[in-house]
């Protein structure tokens, strides 16, 4: 029998496994093309993970904050362009209240980008995260994905900070 996991890109199954290993059972998201693979693995292989669709990234961070208050370990999945929509909730809610969440960011604007409108935010994103003091790491290849996501989540929830995993476009834009 062909399972979803066997036809999904290996990086996507790794991201799902890393989030589950870190205890994340709630994922709030705004859709993105590569992230659709992650969503499909969750929907079809891990029904214990609740997916919550938000209309806008800032809203997603608000929902994630409420989930944390409820005792959950929330993750927020977004495209890099959506970080710009998120900054007020991040800087005036999650950071000052020390509400942790793990951001899984599908990168645009890095290697293999073809759309000029995606480039400025994609290039600025690491520096913007640095300016807010948010630790981030890049996931460049599928074999790293599970462990890097798990480690980032352990640090985020253990130290009550936001953590960010940046999914490199050269990984997500190539089918496994």
């Amino acid at each position, binding site marked *: 029998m062909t399972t979803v996991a066997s036809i999904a890109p290996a990086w996507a199954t790794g991201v799902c496994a890393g989030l589950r290993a870190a205890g994340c059972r709630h994922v709030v998201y705004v859709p993105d093309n590569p992230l659709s693979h992650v969503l499909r693995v969750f929907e079809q292989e891990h029904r214990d993970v609740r997916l919550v669709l938000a209309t806008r990234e800032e809203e997603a961070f608000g929902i994630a904050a409420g989930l944390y208050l409820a*005792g959950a370990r929330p993750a927020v999945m977004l495209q890099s362009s959506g970080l710009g929509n998120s900054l*007020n909730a991040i800087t005036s*809610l999650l950071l000052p209240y020390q509400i942790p969440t793990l951001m899984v960011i599908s990168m645009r604007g890095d290697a293999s980008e073809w759309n000029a409108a995606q480039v400025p935010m994609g290039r600025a994103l690491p520096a913007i995260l640095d300016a807010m003091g948010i630790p981030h790491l890049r996931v460049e290849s599928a074999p790293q994905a599970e462990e890097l996501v798990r480690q980032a989540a352990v640090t985020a929830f253990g130290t009550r900070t936001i953590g960010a995993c940046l999914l490199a476009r050269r990984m997500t834009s190539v089918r496994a």
Partner: protein
Amino acid sequence: MNRLEATRVLAASVGDAPIVASLGHPAYDLFAAGDRPQNFYTWGSMGVASSIGLGLAIGRPDLRVFVADGDGSLLMNLGSLATIGSTAPANLVLLVWDNAEYATTGGQPTATAGAADLAAAAAALGIASSVTVRDEAELRQAIGRAQAEPGPWMINAKVAESAPRAKPPLDCVFIKQRFMNAIGNPESATTGGAA
């Protein structure tokens, strides 16, 4: 009915249930109506109080979750109404203190001073139980229904400004940890944990 009077009706009605308050005057009036650990006062993130309430309601279906929002704040995050309408948590009650002005910033009129109708917007975006109330008796009745009947509920309360004079605690982490302890989700540092 001014916003403080409306907030007192809410606080007197909800027992131990959590209340998430939008920044500025809604939070100040919630504090003035009676500080309690189950109050989550926001100090920033204008617009996302309803989103915080939604996440809390999803994560704790055993609690009835109340949000004290403002018209100006909700107008900043109208998509939240669509998300609440489509996820439809039965235990979420979104109250909007609609004074038709940005009172915290000096009284500039909001869109509800004109044609905008937030209860109609909530109904159109899938929150079937959406009502507008204009006095304390109507508000008390609506909150009673929202506690007895499945939600999500949106109660748009037309209020006058109330010029609050007191502010909630300033320490955000204190607000969070006190709140999480009160609703039974203590963070490990406030309780100790396994070695």
